[in-house]
């Protein structure tokens, strides 16, 4: 790809990004919809190409390499397509059942170990290891997990000790949420900062970035004030 095209890609990318940021203004406007539809079109195109390439690399090449059994994958896949026609949609049930079955098996056969047993197992630890801080940690975890679990019991009236533990659980859960919210915010901020970092380095991008930001911001306001946004937006 030659210099100019790359440059163009960068600039368009920056502009379309800020067009998308005008979503934050919370009013319909064509810039945003343009960005939305561009993404919809392009992204769908990508996933078509990717899926078919995957089919080719895995199945077709596989069959050529003598993995005859893979022929089924093609057959099932084609049967899948019958969904599109209401009268023949029943044809797709076989592959559907097949994929659901395998998927189920895959998730179940490990689900139990990763999430359920291992997590429980990790909670069962020697509380007192001689290190006070360690003790604090482990004790808190044990208590929290148990109490919070009781908060999520549904088929019985919460009363007596259960009521008490579930209340405690609820409070502990909110402490947890506080922490988790903060971590999540860090993550999201990280994404945003990271992206902004990439549109401000190398420094020649800066003017384009600032320009697009200003243009889109003003445009959003104008579209809103003049009511043009409502008129020109999609749907």
């Amino acid at each position, binding site marked *: 790809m030659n210099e100019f095209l790359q440059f163009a890609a960068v600039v368009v990318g920056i502009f379309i990004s800020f067009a998308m940021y005008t979503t934050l203004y919370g009013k319909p406007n064509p810039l945003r919809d343009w960005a939305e539809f561009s993404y919809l079109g392009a992204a769908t195109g990508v996933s078509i190409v990717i899926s078919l390439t995957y089919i080719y690399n895995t199945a077709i090449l596989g069959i050529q390499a003598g993995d005859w059994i893979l022929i089924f994958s093609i057959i099932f896949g084609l049967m899948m397509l019958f969904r599109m026609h209401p009268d023949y949609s029943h044809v797709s049930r076989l592959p559907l059942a097949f994929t659901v079955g395998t998927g189920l098996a895959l998730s179940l056969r490990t689900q139990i170990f990763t999430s359920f047993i291992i997590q*429980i197992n990790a909670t*069962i630890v*020697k509380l*007192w290891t001689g290190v006070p801080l360690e003790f604090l940690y482990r004790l808190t975890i044990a208590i929290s997990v148990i109490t919070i*679990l009781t908060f999520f019991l549904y088929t019985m009236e919460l009363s007596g000790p259960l009521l008490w533990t579930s209340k405690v659980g609820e409070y502990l859960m909110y402490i947890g949420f506080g922490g988790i919210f903060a971590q999540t915010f860090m993550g999201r901020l990280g994404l945003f900062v990271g992206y902004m970092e990439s549109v401000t380095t190398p420094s020649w991008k800066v003017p384009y970035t600032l320009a697009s930001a200003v243009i889109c911001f003003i445009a959003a306001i104008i579209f809103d004030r003049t009511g043009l946004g409502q008129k020109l937006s999609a749907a």
Partner: protein
Amino acid sequence: MLLILLFALTIKFMGQAKLPYIRRVPALDAIEDAVGRSTEMGKPVVCSFGIGGFDYWTVAGLSILGYVAKICAETDTRLIVPTGGGSETYITREAAVDLVRNAYTAAGRPEAFNEEDMPFLSGEQYAYTPGYVGILVRERPGATVMTGSHYSEAMNIAEMANGVDSITITAGCYTSNMAALACASDYIMLGEEQPAAGAYLSREPAQMASIRVQDIYKFIAIGTILVGIVLVNVGSDIINRLLAT
């Protein structure tokens, strides 16, 4: 071994599926009020059931969608159901369409059902998200009920819904999401609350039974942890070894 045991137990419990008592989740009342509000204001209701395949959350989300559809059909409120967002959603979509259509038929107004209001916003999560947000911005719904397995797009939707002053009722399906959604939305169904609500609404034996079974397992889990901790601290790691097998 342990696994087989689990399965046997589950099936057994499922067998004796006498309708158990299920706690009513507060957010449910909120849903009714919210839909009622948007009916008065003559605004549409947006209700989505997630972008997952037929996982745990989606099934619950669909039950809730069915409930919302029922109210909307009865009160003649426009219901918009954005679908898509994942490679598996085209199956769930079919189910959802049937669900909503049935709801309208049951309410005796099949003509009011309009599949146009269940747009398929591509199988791409990040194409689905702006599509969804676009709907919120353009239609300015009076209520937004976001259930099922929504992932990182959930915050976009919740916060934007709040921005267009629609009552926002969400259900988180993983931890970090929930913490954020709890802040963003007017009412939230925290994790397990969602399936419970789904079961409560659908009154479907299978679902209610499974909530029951899950509670039993939670008790088992709690018990195991308690016993385990006690044992470990008197110096026997029998439980750990048992679980490790």
